[in-house]
């Protein structure tokens, strides 16, 4: 049998399109700006790289401690520390321009205008293949999750980005909502080319010695294997509700995890926390998916996307 076709088109409705050679990508905030792991794995073999969330101005982030391990999970309260969009365009994009792997920039605004401005600034930048709109960060006081919590605000942020770029736009949804499918429908209506879900779930941990919250910012976002069943269910629900491609994310650590998300309706997966546990996780997952397809005589990934519906 000839080797299976793992490629996916994430933005079929967009004139520029977003074709990935395979469905395995890196979740924003867990893979830096792409080059940090270049010494450890061949990053060109990834389906796409989604870089650390970026804001208009550089941000310092939250006080230490920023990470706490829980059983099968990690709480983080990084607080969107980032170099700002100008430095990103000046210092990071030129490197990406020389890569074959598409790089998607995760953006966070504090207002609709900021989302619009970020989209405008990134629009013509060589090396940038798409925008992931973060309306789901639990670690900032303004913006982020505020936008992800109501269908109207989520649609507004999406609309602001879409109106200012021809780049494919993926909207990243928060699980900290009552009805994620409702938000999904609202952002698709507003023009999202694709969706990614989920961002982290709000959580906390308390340090016995100090009797204080273990994270410097009190609460944080939970990621890792502990959230996988929740993420999977949300992907399944959203896949029934919308027609656009979905990137599944949340606790994906192995090829079996990734395949579950694909069966649930995801066209691609994002691997986050698992890269900390196993820096080779993305490539191991890619190999595993390929092996599965060979074994089960699946010629094209599209044959199994949403198989569980």
């Amino acid at each position, binding site marked *: 049998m000839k080797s299976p076709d793992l490629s996916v088109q994430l933005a079929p409705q967009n004139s520029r399109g977003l074709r990935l050679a395979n469905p395995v990508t890196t979740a924003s905030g867990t893979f830096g700006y792409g080059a940090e792991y270049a010494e450890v794995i061949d990053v060109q073999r990834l389906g796409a790289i989604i870089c650390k969330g970026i804001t208009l101005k550089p941000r310092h982030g939250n006080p230490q401690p920023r*990470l706490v391990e829980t059983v099968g999970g990690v709480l983080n309260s990084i607080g969107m520390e980032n170099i700002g969009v100008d430095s990103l365009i000046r210092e990071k994009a030129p490197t990406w321009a020389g890569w074959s792997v598409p790089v998607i920039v995760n953006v966070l605004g504090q207002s609709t205008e900021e989302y619009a401005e970020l989209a405008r600034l990134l629009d013509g930048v060589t090396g940038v293949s798409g925008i992931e709109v973060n309306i789901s960060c639990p670690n900032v006081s303004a913006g982020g999750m505020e936008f992800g919590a109501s269908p109207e605000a989520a649609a507004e942020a999406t609309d602001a980005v879409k109106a200012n770029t021809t780049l494919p736009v993926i909207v990243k949804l928060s699980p900290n909502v009552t009805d994620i499918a409702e938000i999904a429908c609202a952002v698709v209506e507003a023009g999202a080319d694709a969706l990614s879900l989920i961002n982290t779930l709000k959580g906390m941990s308390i340090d016995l010695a100090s009797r204080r919250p273990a994270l410097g910012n009190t609460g944080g976002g939970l990621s890792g294997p502990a959230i996988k069943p929740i993420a999977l269910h949300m992907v399944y629900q959203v896949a029934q509700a919308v027609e656009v491609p979905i990137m599944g994310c949340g606790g994906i650590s192995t090829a079996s995890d990734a395949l579950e998300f694909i069966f649930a309706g995801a066209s691609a997966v994002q691997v986050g926390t698992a890269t900390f546990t196993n820096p080779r996780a993305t490539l191991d997952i890619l190999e595993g998916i390929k092996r599965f397809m060979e074994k089960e005589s699946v010629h094209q990934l599209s044959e199994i996307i949403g198989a569980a519906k």
Partner: protein
Amino acid sequence: MKQVNATVVSNHELWPGAYLLWAQAPEIAALARPGQYAMVRCGEGHDMPLRRPLSVHRTSLDGNVAFLFAVVGRGTEWLAQRKKGDPLDLFGPLGNGFDIYPSSRKLLLIAGGIGIAPLVALAEQAVATGCSVTLMIGDRTATRIYPDRLLPSGIKTVVATEDGSLGMKGMVTDLLPKFIPEADQVFACGPLRMYQRMAQMSSELRDKPTQVLLEVVLGCGVGACLGCTIETRHGQSLVCKDGPVFELSDIVWDKAVAPPAGRRYLRK
């Protein structure tokens, strides 16, 4: 940096609650410098998503690397149970390591508790390059002091115990006014409060070039997750990549916080 499938060569309790583990990992042994660390994967599967950072304690010419670690929680508990022949997933070497200035001839090394771990590698390197080394070791009691027979020969050791059961009674930091003046360069590894005490010493002592190894919870080890950012006098730094070794005078000590004690609080 490499992700290496290493094999445990030996693992035994050096004193109650502290283990010396040797692993075969030629790729790491060949590259590691004193003060660098490896991220050690602990547990089976993914129940412990974060690797544990452990300093390179020693390396051998035949490709082995040693870690010296205190059992304080889930990860180190698991690690203490590893036996000869067991596989061990290591990611390293990572971080900047200590920097002995070319002009430094007399070095003072200060170990608080398990902080001895990276300083043994440093002492070995210093002796090999012809520096004279004074190593101060401090802990609660005599049974927790790193055994003399395992230290490189040709160094001078000074011991302090809080209960006076070995060496001087008190804290190593109490001895610093006596020893710092004659050193060209100082290196320290210990708990945060030891560094904070050092940062409060008289300016004459503080002005001696002093490098310290900082502990913060690390996520990725390569500067990708920004979980370990701290404030320095030159702006923000990543402990995992720019550190873990910093100049004492560069750190904003009143903003520094120790990693949460977590479960270990109940074991005391």
